[in-house]
């Protein structure tokens, strides 16, 4: 095949990858919905968590702090941002202290006697009214009474004010210039996104929009806007991870290219090796798009990691080419072993498909499809574009020496057994937690930001994101009634400092039963007028001044009770909406808590309410989901390991040979675990996936070293290929191990360690490598080098 034809095919291949990739990118939805990723919820709390995750009242809040300008500028910016956000459909609500609750309460003016608790203890009779009016007279002996006067005529008991005050959070930042300010002089706002808190995509859009609004405000350039909250952290985490991955990606790409140039003394591998891997990835994505239509972001990240095995296929081909032999011939000779590796791994991944978890099934489809595609491309497409070899890699300087060095290493038969036993003991008995269940431990949020979040949260009295008080009842009305019943008990928990503050749904809307009871206590027009007449005796109020009050009470007597649906239309509706949700055929009330000091104190509440009320620890629930997910992965991995053993044994047609392949793999995996455990690193899902990738690479090393070729030069080529593969894996993952991002570090460290152990053990435990190379064969290898290459290897006889 001519050079022109090869370049044309290469170009066509590239274009095909790009075209399919573009098409797939348009159709495949990358979701960040945790429900795609974790197994189905089993407990009611897990179900609530999955339904509500990120939708819960606390997790959608973004806390904002504006600083760096004079106070009046900050106040103006706060008002400007509040105005902009209140018109942005991405935000459900925004508060900066300037919202006049009394104004909001006047929207619900007709309902004030049904919503306020006054009538629980009093009646609108002459005695109560007289006491109230007496107080109003005293209130009026102040020049500032002008503010109250218009209200007094309509609302002499100040019911609207009582309501507004009952809705004010117990703790609030101080007001300066009508807006909230922190103790450090930052203007504070709190806003609720419509998007779920753990939906990084939607949160990123909302945050970008928020930042745009802020930048558009006059004078914003001189001020600084700080954002905090779960949504922000999610966006930050993915941005940090991506930035770090991109940076390391650039470094390792350059290193990889240099290494390829050094290893093959040719530019061809540089422009060609990536093609099978890219083809595999594109095919994997296409299959995901065809079969599922969408994939979870974490699945894709895991899948890409596992697909890294395919990088080895073309490298093996390049190392095994011989002078005068067509590349297609070399590939054909290599193919049985490569195919064995691919098929074995694919069979193993079938276990993931059978797991029943959507995320794992996607992972299996992506990985199997990708590996098969990469393999097929290596077998049939790669030979078309790779020119015939001009060098035999067996003649690489130093390679024969390396072989002899490896061959001379002592190989006591008892060592693997000793290592295995010692390893098991270390893994089992090393102190420290075995598993990392806390996903947030892997998120790269700087400590300073977390501390700032805690500070802003405390200043704003914003609810805790970890705990929710869950109330269950068959109906919304039942939840509200339950909420009313437990409110005094929760108040006692505040008094005993078990919790700093709380907000229950009934704080905003009493149950219909309570509303009706209050309504029944309202006097009719005649009664009220008589009572008012009597109450006003001896007081200086002008006659008839309370006519609108009498009319309002009459209206309230005939109103149907305010329903959650109706309340949710009011400006405060969003608050109630997030606290009252339907789940299955029941209803759930979500009470928010701030400053939970003693979670155990809530147990008594749970007991007293027959389990209808309990404290939901979102962290514990997430961890239980992670544990459930890991359990599935472990089962899948266990089955995969068995399938792999069977496949390898079948392919090699010898249990003994299979043992030579699987032994080093098992032991190397064990050794990685030993190192991680000895360093006190708890294992996360990312470690598990990395271990799997390392095992896949180790399978190659072991399979190729186990191969009996009877040809010293072929053995040298195997060593060359393996060294290039090991070096590239160590380069990529070793650099990753230096990352500040915990996820990347976990992956990098595990794979790099794994590659090192797999290589060492597969060399040491391979049956033939121990046999020293016959001198004449080694010499032949040396002679096979091209004449242009300098002779640096001394041949010992």
């Amino acid at each position: 095949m001519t050079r022109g034809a090869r370049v044309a095919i290469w170009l066509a291949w590239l274009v095909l990858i790009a075209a399919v990739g573009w098409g797939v990118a348009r159709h495949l939805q990358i979701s960040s919905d945790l429900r795609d990723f974790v197994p189905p919820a089993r407990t009611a709390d897990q179900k609530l968590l999955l339904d509500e995750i990120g939708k819960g009242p606390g997790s959608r809040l973004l806390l904002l702090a504006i600083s760096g300008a004079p106070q009046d500028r900050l106040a103006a910016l706060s008002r400007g941002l509040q105005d902009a956000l209140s018109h942005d459909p991405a935000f459900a609500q925004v508060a900066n202290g300037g919202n006049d609750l009394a104004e909001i309460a006047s929207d619900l003016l007709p309902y004030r006697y049904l919503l306020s608790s006054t009538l629980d203890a009093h009646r609108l009779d002459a005695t109560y009214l007289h006491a109230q009016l007496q107080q109003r007279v005293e209130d009026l002996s102040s020049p500032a009474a002008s503010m109250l006067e218009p209200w007094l005529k309509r609302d002499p008991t100040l019911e609207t004010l009582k309501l507004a005050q009952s809705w004010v959070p117990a703790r609030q930042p101080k007001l300066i210039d009508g807006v909230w300010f922190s103790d450090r002089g930052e203007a504070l706002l709190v806003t609720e996104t419509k998007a779920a808190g753990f939906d990084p995509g939607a949160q990123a859009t909302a945050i970008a929009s928020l930042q745009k609004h802020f930048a558009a405000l006059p004078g914003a350039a001189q001020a600084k806007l700080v954002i905090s909250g779960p949504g922000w952290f999610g966006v930050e985490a993915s941005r940090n991870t991506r930035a770090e991955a991109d940076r390391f990606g650039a470094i390792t790409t350059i290193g990889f290219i240099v290494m390829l140039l050094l290893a093959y003394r040719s530019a061809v591998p540089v422009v060609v090796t990536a093609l099978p891997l890219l083809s595999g990835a594109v095919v994997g994505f296409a299959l995901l798009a065809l079969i599922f239509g969408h994939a979870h972001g974490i699945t894709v990240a895991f899948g890409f990691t596992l697909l890294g095995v395919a990088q080895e296929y073309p490298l093996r081909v390049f190392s095994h080419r011989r002078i005068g032999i067509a590349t297609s011939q070399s590939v054909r000779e290599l193919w049985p072993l490569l195919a064995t590796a691919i098929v074995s791994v694919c069979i193993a991944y079938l276990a993931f498909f059978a797991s029943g978890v959507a995320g794992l099934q996607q992972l299996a489809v992506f990985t199997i499809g990708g590996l098969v595609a990469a393999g097929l491309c290596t077998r049939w497409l790669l030979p078309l574009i790779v020119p015939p070899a001009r060098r035999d890699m067996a003649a690489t300087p130093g390679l024969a020496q390396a072989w002899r060095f490896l061959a001379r290493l002592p190989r006591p038969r008892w060592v693997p057994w000793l290592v295995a036993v010692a390893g098991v003991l270390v893994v089992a008995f090393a102190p420290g937690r075995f598993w990392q269940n806390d996903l947030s431990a892997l998120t790269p949020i700087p400590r300073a930001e977390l501390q700032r979040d805690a500070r802003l949260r405390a200043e704003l009295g914003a609810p805790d994101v970890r705990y929710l008080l869950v109330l269950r009842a068959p109906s919304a009305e039942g939840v509200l009634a339950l909420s009313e019943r437990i409110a005094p008990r929760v108040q006692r928990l505040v008094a005993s400092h078990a919790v700093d503050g709380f907000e229950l749904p009934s704080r905003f809307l009493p149950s219909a039963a309570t509303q009706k009871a209050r309504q029944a206590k309202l006097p009719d027009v005649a009664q009220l007028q008589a009572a008012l007449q009597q109450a006003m005796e001896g007081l200086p109020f002008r006659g008839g001044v309370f006519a609108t009050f009498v009319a309002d009470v009459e209206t309230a007597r005939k109103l149907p009770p305010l329903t959650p649906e109706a309340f949710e239309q009011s400006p405060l509706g969003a608050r109630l909406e997030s606290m009252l949700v339907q789940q299955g055929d029941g209803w759930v009330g979500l009470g928010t808590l701030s400053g939970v000091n003693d979670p155990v104190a809530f147990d008594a509440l749970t007991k007293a309410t027959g389990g209808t009320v309990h404290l939901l620890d979102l962290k514990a629930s997430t961890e239980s989901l992670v544990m459930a997910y890991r359990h599935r992965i472990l089962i899948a991995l266990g089955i995969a390991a068995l399938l792999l053993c069977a496949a390898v044994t079948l392919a090699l047609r010898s249990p003994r040979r299979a043992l030579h392949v699987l032994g080093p793999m098992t032991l190397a995996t064990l050794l990685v675990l030993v190192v991680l455990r000895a360093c006190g690193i708890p294992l996360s899902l990312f470690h598990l996936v990395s271990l799997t990738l390392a095992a896949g690479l180790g399978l190659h090393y072991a399979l190729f070293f186990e191969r009996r070729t009877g040809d010293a030069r072929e053995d040298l080529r195997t060593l060359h290929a393996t060294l290039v593969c090991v070096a590239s894996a160590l380069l990529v993952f070793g650099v990753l191990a230096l990352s500040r991002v915990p996820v990347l570090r976990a992956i990098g460290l595990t794979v790099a360690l794994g590659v090192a152990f797999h290589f060492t053990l597969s060399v040491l435990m391979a049956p033939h490598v121990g046999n020293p190379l016959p001198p004449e064969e080694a010499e032949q290898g040396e002679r096979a080098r091209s004449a242009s290459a300098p002779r640096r290897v001394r041949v010992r006889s």
Partner: protein
Amino acid sequence: MRSSRICSRRTLRDALIAFALLASCGAWAADPGLAESLLSGIAKTPPVSTPFVQVSYRGMLDRPLVVSGTLRWLGGDRMQRDIEKPFNETAKIGDGELSVQRGSGEVHRVPLARAPQAGAMLAGFRALLGGDVSALQQDFTLSAQGGAARWVITLAPRTNQLKRQLASIVIDGRAHEPRCLTVTDANGDSSITLVGAMAEAGLRSAAPLQSALAARCRNSP
């Protein structure tokens, strides 16, 4: 009593205005003309106290409201207003907090930081006591009429927040002492507070007409 906060704010306003009066009790510079020159010489040594009588004229009431008691400046940012008739109420400002107790009832506490305009006014009147006219001028436009023997200082609010509640504060004084503080609200209602000798003299009627009381403030020797 949930309405306490509003009550407290009003009481605070009251107290602050009384504070202004306290500030003006004493030796005035007999320099006729500008309010600035009248105010700039003021320096007081706490504690200072004076009796007061406040008469409020409200649109929704058919007769004026009268309360009386004692105003005290305890030094620093601590002050107290005690209403003794016709009911008992004690309002205290101190340590960044306002506390109000009506009768023997519950003491209601509000941090001053939660009532920013009250805080600004307190700062303004502290400035007045300390003779710091420029601080006072942040919140009010000052003007004065009359001479050293008989004078009137008018404080007109500058900020919108104050203007929403308050039209003006007018202080009538004779030589070294203020007599009456007339506060006119944005809605036209008003109150007249007598202090010092005027308060000691008391009211001549249980429900004095506003015009009569105003004339007394202006014209009595």
